[in-house]
């Protein structure tokens, strides 16, 4: 019963008019970037970056937002330690010389109250290039343990790794890399 009351309270807070913008801090348990790249025109290699840090500022009534996030490319996880080590080398992620990759964006597109695309800059290997991330879905819910609003979704976008100087293995491993981003942020008080 207490849980239900808490839920209703959180729901009411979620529906009530609020001071905007709202800041959401990324929830590292529900925020990952996966890459996908075609291998010999045959099958898709996938790898995961976890440990995302950062925040999103959203003003849903003004339909504006800002995101700043960082990740450590050295933490790449493909399920194959030998492949992870190869990816960290200087002709791919160069994670020793460039230990942090960042994404910042201030151009948010909305459909109603929901974010449907974000245009920003990805910085990888010290090189910044524009990146568009499109929302496949976007939503908010009440985090069951924290009883706070969590918003997020699934985003995807494409980049050419050669634009960042990570060109080893082309053309057997494709130039085009698809990013699939799962992200949730917890509303900050």
């Amino acid at each position, binding site marked *: 019963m207490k849980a239900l009351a808490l839920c209703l309270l959180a729901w009411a807070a979620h529906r009530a008019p609020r001071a905007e913008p709202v800041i959401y801090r990324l929830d590292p348990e529900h925020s990952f970037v996966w890459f996908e790249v075609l291998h*010999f025109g045959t*099958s898709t290699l996938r790898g*995961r970056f*976890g440990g995302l840090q950062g925040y999103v500022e959203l003003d849903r009534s003004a339909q504006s937002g800002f995101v700043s996030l960082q990740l450590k490319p050295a933490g790449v996880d493909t399920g194959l330690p030998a492949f992870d080590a190869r990816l960290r080398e200087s002709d791919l992620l160069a994670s020793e010389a460039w230990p942090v990759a960042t994404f910042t964006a201030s151009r948010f597109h909305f459909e109603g109250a929901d974010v449907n695309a974000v245009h920003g800059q990805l910085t990888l290997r010290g090189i910044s290039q524009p990146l568009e991330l499109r929302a496949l879905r976007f939503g908010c819910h009440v985090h069951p343990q924290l009883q706070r609003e969590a918003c997020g*979704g699934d985003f995807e976008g494409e980049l050419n790794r050669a634009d960042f100087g990570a060109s080893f293995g082309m053309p057997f491993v494709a130039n085009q890399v698809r990013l699939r981003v*799962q992200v949730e942020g917890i509303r900050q008080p």
Partner: protein
Amino acid sequence: MRHLLAAATLGLALAAPASATTYAIDPTHTFVTYEIGHFGTSTNRGRFDKKEGTVQFDRAAKTGKVEISFDLNAISTGVAMLDKHLQSADFFDTAKHPNARFVGDKFSFSGDKVTQVAGTLTMLGKTAPVTLKANNFNCYINPMLRREVCGGDFQTTLKRSQWGMNWGLESGVPDEVRLLIQVEAIKQ
């Protein structure tokens, strides 16, 4: 005598059915990733890292059989606590059922490319039908191995409750789970 042997060999060769070629699953290019919705917000993904299997494949006869098994203790979501929960009796119950096994023996083709593989998936001691649809399929000569490699990307959506994996259904954890399958297999 020599002629007789030659004739016998020829006879054997003619009598033998066009045999399927065996391919061994390449574990470095074979992964299953699951996707399940999380509170209607984002997608939770996890990967199964340890597997083994073989494929019998006859491109001319357009037939094949694949057998692959996954060690469910090697699940990897990037969140250690979630991995443990998934291994528990709430989900895969790996103490009792350490492996999942897919056997596919109904290959569909378009030209010489595989378009889908139908078969059965056994998990939690239950076997149910599953059809994997190909998004990509191709064979190539791997320049390092100097051998033919065939593979592709397959996907399917299943309902976990079919295997009795019901945890959280009542509180809104989805029943539908999407599987993304990367597979490559090396000609033996």
